[in-house]
């Protein structure tokens, strides 16, 4: 493997790994905040219990997420030093702000977890809101750097020399609003479905007590609601991103849809394998005019095809198209699932006694996380060969230092250890602390946290 491929693979795996933790780290605090609000509003301690159990997961995942995030931050400078030299001149402000968001998140989390017995319920709600805002902001600010990589603005560039740089313009770039919206809502959606899946798995078990039944059903409704609403918003921002791409990054849209020639009434092709030689998609289901609609809001407007761009700047078309379709497909499936759930709930038909439906919800949890990974891989692959669109290629940015192979081995070993340990410690913890065992009134976050550390 060449150093470039190794560096890309290493960074890709690291990001892919970090994104799982980061997404959960954004979504879980939001759910905790909602559960705290519900608990205060309904005076129902079972919501309190949900918040506490979520907090346990959050503490573990946010901790590992901090670690993987630190890795990503340092790795950026180590693997892509030339990219970071440009970043330092133009788009470093989001990174700087991100740290403060991140410190804010850590502070509020510590206050929420370790100060639980010292602060009032209102302060606790406030602290959980602080965690959730800090987490969201830090994710959004990092994503903003990615938005700059897609649609760089505020910079004049000549042969590696920066002639003009306006960091504030770079920060507020054309793809910022859509991309940020899409990332945040999709994180809320995915995490909601993950915990809907957790509730569904629990409901599939036999011999639940009445309290457990009520507890899991209640959580399922909450998460399905969050997942459904966030899903619809995700679709909205995704659609807006399509229109943004049509204007600012038409090459990416054309690659996503395998559109070779600039076309009016351009069709949206679902599935199929892109054939570069024949310049068409083989085996997909075309919906005439829909791509034009997605890109321009008019069926008859033209959409720019790949032939408008130099061949060497095309990404790898086959996977890009499939990943795009998978992302849209997963989103649609999850939204539909949530709609079905609430339709039957409204009709007062008990769908939860049907095991196949619960199994479908479990499946959706896995799908939703896969959708997040898939969406990110699509977003990065479809920009290839650029690291900063039309400014710098990935090949230009990669480090000249030797020894990437060693780094690769070291980090793979580390990630394996971390992954196994995360899963194992979550399992061990929740096996010992089941729902029926935990008295809702017991303030168990605090005691178990301190016991865990000190015993």
């Amino acid at each position: 493997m060449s150093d470039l491929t190794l560096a890309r693979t290493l960074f890709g795996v690291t990001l892919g790994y970090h994104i799982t933790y980061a997404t959960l780290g954004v979504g879980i605090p939001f759910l905790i905040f909602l559960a705290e609000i519900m608990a205060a509003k309904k005076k129902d301690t079972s919501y309190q219990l949900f918040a506490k159990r979520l907090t346990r997961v959050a503490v573990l995942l946010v901790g590992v997420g901090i670690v993987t995030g630190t890795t990503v931050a340092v790795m950026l400078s180590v693997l892509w030093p030339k990219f970071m030299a440009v970043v330092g001149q133009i788009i470093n402000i989001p990174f700087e702000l991100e740290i403060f968001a991140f410190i804010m998140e850590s502070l509020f989390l510590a206050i929420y977890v370790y100060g639980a017995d010292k602060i009032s319920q209102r302060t606790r709600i406030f602290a959980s809101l602080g965690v959730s805002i800090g987490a969201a902001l830090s994710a959004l600010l990092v994503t903003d750097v990615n938005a700059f990589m897609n649609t760089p603005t505020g910079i004049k560039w000549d042969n590696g020399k920066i002639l003009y740089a306006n960091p504030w313009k770079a920060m507020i770039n054309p793809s910022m609003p859509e991309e940020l919206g899409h990332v945040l809502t999709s994180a809320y959606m995915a995490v909601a479905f993950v915990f809907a899946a957790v509730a569904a798995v629990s409901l599939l078990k036999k011999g639940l007590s009445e309290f457990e039944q009520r507890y899991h059903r209640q959580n399922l409704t909450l998460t399905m609601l969050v997942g459904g609403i966030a899903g619809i918003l995700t679709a909205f921002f995704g659609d807006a991103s399509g229109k943004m791409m049509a204007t600012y990054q038409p090459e990416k849209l054309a690659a996503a849809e395998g559109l070779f020639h600039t076309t009016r009434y351009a069709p949206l092709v679902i599935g199929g394998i892109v054939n570069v030689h024949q310049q068409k998609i083989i085996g997909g289901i075309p919906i005439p005019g829909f791509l034009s609609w997605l890109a321009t809001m008019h069926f008859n407007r033209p959409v720019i095809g790949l032939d408008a761009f130099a061949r060497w700047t095309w990404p790898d078309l086959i996977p890009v198209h499939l990943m795009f379709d998978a992302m849209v497909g997963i989103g649609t499936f999850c939204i539909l699932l949530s709609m079905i759930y609430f339709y039957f709930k409204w009709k007062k038909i008990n769908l939860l006694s049907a095991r196949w439906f619960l199994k479908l919800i479990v499946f959706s949890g896995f799908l939703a996380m896969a959708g997040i990974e898939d969406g990110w891989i699509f977003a990065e692959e479809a920009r290839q060969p650029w690291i900063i669109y039309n400014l710098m290629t990935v090949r230009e940015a990669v480090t000249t230092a030797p020894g990437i192979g060693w780094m690769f081995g070291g980090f793979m070993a580390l990630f394996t250890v971390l992954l196994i340990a995360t899963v194992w410690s979550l399992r061990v913890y929740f096996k010992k602390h089941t729902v029926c065992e935990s008295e809702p009134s017991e303030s168990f976050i605090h005691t178990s946290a301190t016991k865990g550390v000190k015993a």
Partner: protein
Amino acid sequence: MTILIMGAWFFWLLVFVYSILGAIDFGSSFWRWFFHMRGFAYAESVASTYLSPTWELINAFLIVIPVALVGLFPKAAFTYGTILALPATLLLILLSLRGAYLQFGYASQRFQTHTLFVSGLTGLLLPGMFIALLPLSQGGYISLIDGHLIFHVKMFFTSISVYLYMAFGVALSLYLSALFLARYAQQAEQWSAYYRFVSGARWIGSVSLFLGASALFYPTPHGMHLMENGLRHPTFIFLMVGSLLAFLLSYSLILSTRRDRKISNMRALWQLGLALAQVVLSQLGYAIAHAPYLLYPYLTLQSSSSNSLMFRSTLLVLLLGLVVLSPLLLWFRRLFIVDAEYVATHMKERH
């Protein structure tokens, strides 16, 4: 004062704050492990009570440093990023293991022993690895070949100077954290734990002074001459003498501590405060002797700085960020660091 100098001072301040916070954080996890092994439950629980809420915050602060470096001196970030590919990997792996295990410890008893061990051992090693950046920046281990800077790894790892710094980093971290935890124990009036930490500081304090002085006087091969540079500035001598005095004062307070007597609040604070003053003064002196090089002789502050708009924005954003966060930091401090009741109740639980 030019904006460049202001930026340099600000960056120095960030590094300085992290060096103190990090030293206390890493040292505490070592002491926790150490006292766990020797069966001193009270001292162990003092360290635990301090570590649990704070380590994430300190780890978050660490990231401020590379990001500020990228924003203020991108060429330095580029150069260090290139030459440090491998050492940074090692450091990251240790840091990651430590962070992750501190979390896994919540899950079960069995994990808890691993956590104590992993965080203790990494807490011992990491300050040494971080401080190795100082001899590196003093030059001599890097040369310019065909337009590329090459890091001579073998030369670096066989250099006495590097090991002096590493040993100094470890010793200083243990010294500062022992004094900090002593003050923490004093707040909770945990006297047996207090004497454990003070006697730890007693052992390591003089070692750390000796190592620090040796590291400063021992010349880096082919690198910069810190003493020569420093002695050109009258402030350098003043700072170094002040630092030595501060050490002697705090160390004599530590030595004169009697085992079976209660310690007043003021005394515990003076011990810690003077030790911190010693570090502040000597780091200032070091900074003066090191300026204006970020990497001798290839990178100076001037040559590696960002365009002026970015430089100004970075400074502005970082300063504003710290100001905006300060009430939150103060709240945190009041809840967990200076609240005697919090410290005391958390230590009274089962050990």
